[in-house]
């Protein structure tokens, strides 16, 4: 009997939806004949005893999930998310660079070093990329540290804040839309698709508005109802990163699809997979046949 470790942390278990999703995952794995053990950060030394590892905690190259992924690497254990994917997707500069290298369609994207932050350079960015601009701190997740700016003064206010956390930042052309496609890809194949409806009070899928967190709406969409160019772009974007599990966010205005970002460790607890009942079966089979 094979052993599956599901690596979690306190935060993963802090809401009911995540907990239900994890229990569902465990039940699916057990029904497929695997032993399942939830591993917390203090259990990291148990990773070598596992036959496969599924990380379900917020990933970052500077946190314990990266240690877990590397421990799996050292012991030849198949893992989702693998350490390369964590390193690439955890840093938008790394992630966009991989997409650009493979000619994946993106909004116009520029990286700005703190050493190049000048009025002339910023003015040039508005001229080249248009107004407004999107400014991102590279390790943002859940749309934190993503801001829309409309003038040079606003740009500097945001950039100075982000440059305290990163020597380089991302500057991007703004693409307006009322929803993002999220294309789930596993091992280079479509796993699920859904729409994230952007709240009308913001341009992000999650935002703090007047002190309250506003979340996007989630609508799972069957494959037949997803534009083929969106599916193909999602697969191409995932392939530019690796062979693991990714959630690719895409804006598709009038058929001009562009990747907004590729996420490792994509959310599966908010109904993203409602039209795709075999998501966990496929993830677990992928891990054990890797």
């Amino acid at each position, binding site marked *: 009997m094979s052993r599956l470790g599901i690596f979690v942390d306190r935060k993963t278990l802090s809401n009911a939806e995540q907990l239900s999703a994890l229990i569902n995952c465990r039940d699916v794995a057990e029904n497929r004949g695997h032993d399942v053990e939830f591993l917390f950060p203090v259990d*990291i030394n148990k990773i070598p005893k596992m036959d496969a590892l599924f990380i379900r905690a917020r990933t970052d*190259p500077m946190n314990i999930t990266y240690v877990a992924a*590397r421990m799996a690497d*050292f012991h030849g254990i198949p893992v989702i998310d693998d350490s390369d994917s964590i390193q690439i997707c955890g840093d938008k500069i*790394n992630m966009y*660079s991989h997409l650009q290298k493979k000619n994946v369609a993106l909004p116009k994207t520029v990286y700005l070093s703190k050493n190049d932050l000048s009025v002339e350079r910023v003015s040039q960015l508005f001229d080249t990329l248009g107004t407004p601009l999107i400014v991102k701190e590279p390790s943002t997740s859940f749309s934190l540290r993503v801001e829309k700016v409309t003038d040079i003064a606003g740009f500097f206010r945001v950039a100075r804040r982000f440059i305290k*956390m*990163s020597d380089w930042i991302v500057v991007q052309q703004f693409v307006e839309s009322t929803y993002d496609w999220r294309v789930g890809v596993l091992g280079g194949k479509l796993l699920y698709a859904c729409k994230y409806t952007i709240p009308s009070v913001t341009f992000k899928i999650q935002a703090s508005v007047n002190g309250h967190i506003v979340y996007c709406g989630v609508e799972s969409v069957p494959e037949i109802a997803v534009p083929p160019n969106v599916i193909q772009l999602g697969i191409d974007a995932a392939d530019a990163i690796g062979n693991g599990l990714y959630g690719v966010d895409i804006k598709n205005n009038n058929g001009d699809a562009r990747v907004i970002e590729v996420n490792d460790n994509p959310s599966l607890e908010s109904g993203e997979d409602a039209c795709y009942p075999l998501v966990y079966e496929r993830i677990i089979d992928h891990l054990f046949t890797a």
Partner: protein
Amino acid sequence: MTRDSLAVVKRNHAYHVIAEDYSYKTEAYYTILERELSGENIHPSSRNVLDAFVVPICLERAKLTGIPVMEWGISQAYVPLPAILYGLNYFATASDFFVVQDNEQAKDVVKHITNKGKYPFCYQKLDDGATIHTCTAVFGRTVGSCTAIEGYAEKIYNLFSIPLVSMVFVKTGSGVVLSSLAPTRYTHLTEKERALLAAYRDEQEFL
């Protein structure tokens, strides 16, 4: 070299980035990443600098190459005493390590490095009488270190290829073991270490 400056030197058909701090999302890290993505043979790699400064990964990789390392564990609260503690999160740096001797002190340090329990941390139990020693390696060479540390510095350089790194060792009755690697400031270098770095930067040959 001045604060925050970096240099790229070519030696033996490879480029080497000399910087004070190779940590994630620094100018040095992105310089490496940019060159890696354009296919250059650049050292250290972005993977190596990430691995080197996340303490448990650094120790696991060092152990696999035969360098003796401290036993480590991950905790959310419990600390065996005495111990060295390292933060393990987005805001932590391996340069900041804390030696705790008693429960009161451990409680305060754990609160600090875990951001009030939000993140786990890495601990290394210290044997009685253990002492901590920090020294700097320049392209795998040290100035005025014992033979054991000289040997480890070279092995660490072969492993991570980081031109300038601070090494933290723990000395016990049975020998010297690695506790962590961390970035180092140019201002912390001795005259001799600066001369060694300048010689590498200016591509002088060593016999």
